[in-house]
């Protein structure tokens, strides 16, 4: 006993030393108090090496937790990550309203053009309403071509298209095996559906599907490769209701547009998709549309005009014009009050296409920052009938050899 006591008091002292040693080896917590929340968070203790998500979301202002959720004080990875919204992607549509929404952020009013989440939720990119209607019609599950179903149920009482709501498409209740296969194989690219496993279907979800252009990066300068995560990855085989992955290895931007029989003009593959296609077309306009054709409207003539008409333009007179907001987010052009830019027939600005004093136009690629100039069709040698303006007519003369 008299020998045990000193021994155990020594062992006891050793365990106290062990406590101190283990404690001294813990990483030093790195605190961040974002100005928006005022609440300390310790995420950057481990995540200091992540790039800033975007210039519009500086980490000093937003921190991590306002978008990602998670346990801001925890230094144990499992606990810290346990309540993160949407796993690594807080913009997944299941949580986007909490992560990205809010009236001060991306669920603002339609009048302010800040209703981004509502637009995406009801857009054909998310609902796939047109294809579902066509396929159900083709296989006898409905008698008309009208859109009744989306991948998820959506509703909008103020929808201007006449379609106030879509029910959730449930292929399991259709007895036709083709419809079931369609449900299994063909919804996965669209935003309300869960991406399928496999390389060919690899895409991000929610807002990030388009806007996340790199690791922990959100941008409005969206290169065509981002669109290609879904588009141009292969083709559907309607006889087997399967998706056939493309097998070629594209070596140029032209070859990267994959539709074996398609033709392209130089501008179609030199520019990025977002240089011509607008917010309403890509994200939706807030209404529920029946199909892609009902929302996609930009054509060659939008920028180039026809033999009889110049492209529509607008001179910027309002400092609060949304154009300045868009140019601020992707500052490729020094737009000023008094500048004249091209607008679409629906009034959407193509703010990166500005009229020059001589009546020609300059354009800067949103993602490539390449500088182009072009002139209107009017007054050129073009002989195209002003009533025939679909791209296939233009391709007859202007398509490039593949």
């Amino acid at each position, binding site marked *: 006993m008299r020998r045990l*006591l000193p021994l155990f008091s020594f062992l*006891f002292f050793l365990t106290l030393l062990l*406590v101190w040693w283990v404690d001294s080896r813990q990483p030093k917590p790195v605190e961040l108090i974002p100005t928006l929340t005022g609440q300390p968070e310790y995420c950057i203790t481990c995540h200091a090496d992540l790039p800033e998500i975007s210039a519009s979301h500086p980490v000093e202002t937003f921190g991590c937790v306002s978008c990602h959720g998670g*346990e801001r004080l*925890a230094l144990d990875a499992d*606990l810290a990550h*346990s*309540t993160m919204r949407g796993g690594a992607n807080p913009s997944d549509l299941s949580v986007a309203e909490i992560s990205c929404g809010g009236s001060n952020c991306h669920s603002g009013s339609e009048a302010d053009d800040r209703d981004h989440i509502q637009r995406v939720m009801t857009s054909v990119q998310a609902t796939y309403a047109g294809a579902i209607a066509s396929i159900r019609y083709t296989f006898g599950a409905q008698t008309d071509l009208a859109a009744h179903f989306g991948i998820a149920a959506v509703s909008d009482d103020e929808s201007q298209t006449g379609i106030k709501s879509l029910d959730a498409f449930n292929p399991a209740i259709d007895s036709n095996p083709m419809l079931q296969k369609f449900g299994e194989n063909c919804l996965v690219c669209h935003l309300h559906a869960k991406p399928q496993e496999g390389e060919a279907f690899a895409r991000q979800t929610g807002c990030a599907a388009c806007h996340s252009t790199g690791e922990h990066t959100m941008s409005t300068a969206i290169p065509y490769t981002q669109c290609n995560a879904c588009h141009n990855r292969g083709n559907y085989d309607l006889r087997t209701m399967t998706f056939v992955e493309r097998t070629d290895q594209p070596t140029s931007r032209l070859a990267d547009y994959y539709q074996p029989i398609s033709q392209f003009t130089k501008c179609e593959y030199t520019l990025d998709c977002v240089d011509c296609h607008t917010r309403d077309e890509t994200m939706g306009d807030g209404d529920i549309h029946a199909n892609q054709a009902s929302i996609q409207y930009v054509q060659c003539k939008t920028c180039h005009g026809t033999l009889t008409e110049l492209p529509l333009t607008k001179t910027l007179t309002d400092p609060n014009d949304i154009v300045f907001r868009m140019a601020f987010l992707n500052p490729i052009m020094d737009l000023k009050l008094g500048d004249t830019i091209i607008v679409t027939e629906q009034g959407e600005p193509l703010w990166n296409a500005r009229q020059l004093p001589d009546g020609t136009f300059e354009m800067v690629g949103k993602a490539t920052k390449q500088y182009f100039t072009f002139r209107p069709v009017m007054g050129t040698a073009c002989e195209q009938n002003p009533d025939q303006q679909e791209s296939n007519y233009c391709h007859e003369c202007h398509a490039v050899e593949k």
Partner: protein
Amino acid sequence: MYFFILHLSSFILFPMPPSFFHHLHPPTIPTAQARWRHTLAAGGTAIFLMLILGVTGILEMFYYAPNPAEAALSVQTITYHVPFGGFIRNLHYWAAQALIVVSAVHFLRVIFTAAYGHPRRFNYLLGLALFVVSIMLDFTGYILRWDVDICWPLTTGTNLLKTIPVIGDFLYRIAVGGNEVCETALLRFYTWHIFGLTILVVILGVWHAFRVRRDGGIAVPPPQLRADVTRIPRDELVRREVLTMFIVSIGLILLSIFVPAPIAAAMSVSIRESVTESVDVRAPWFFLWVQQMLKWGDPFIFGVLIPSIILALLALIPYIFPQPNEAEIGSWFPKSNRLAQIIVAIIGTIIIILTFINR
């Protein structure tokens, strides 16, 4: 705490005049009954664990915020940001778990050495009450985490009170402070944990220890029936106690370093909603056996009545079962109280089996 131990050890290593601590012990105690293999050091360890719980608990109170919005976050602050806070919290947790185990061992020792007979019958009841209050302290402490994992045990645990006829609703309102479990319950549980139950434990604990001395120290046969009449001085007893404290401390410290106390995410919504989101629907380990029974049927019968009957049966052991033979008091597994031993063994085995079924 450890200054206290070091202070004590100085008594052992260097001769010093008897202190207050020495005088808490009887001048001499019987050699046979002072052995480790007799006492299992359980009663003393329980007191030591309560001291640790008191000290670590007070340290936690410096940071713990007993309001629903901050409680779980303050636990995370303690765990991750207060210097040695995680270690102190782990110590508090492991001391509390160990207290349940050690108290149970102490109880079994008393039963299996027939140490509860007259005049110790009342002290046996005090000990049983201490055990029950310790479990309630453990449960209330568990609830104070106020994170997503406590929702289910809190809801079921308190709903059990409602099933009690006549006084159930009244007890429920006392426990949670309203008609349903919501934010008021946290302050209730906090006050019970820090103040109500702790005061009870201190009073019952001091009374229990006082009655040990008053009832003639550790249970032994009368002098004429003892095989071994030798006694050891209290210095030796104190030495053994200090050695026990060192061993227990080393064990607790190692556990606290390597096995962190459970913690979960803060509740983002009210309890009622969190219950549906909560992943962990298991009761704290010392109630797993009750939870297992709750799967069988009526919550009043299985959740309240049967545990109460078990408790009543245990409480009545010194009163309704044959008294142990005087010559056998203080020896292991005496023949004269076989019935009590068998009943406790059966109940204990069933509780352990139920616990493991529900793991």
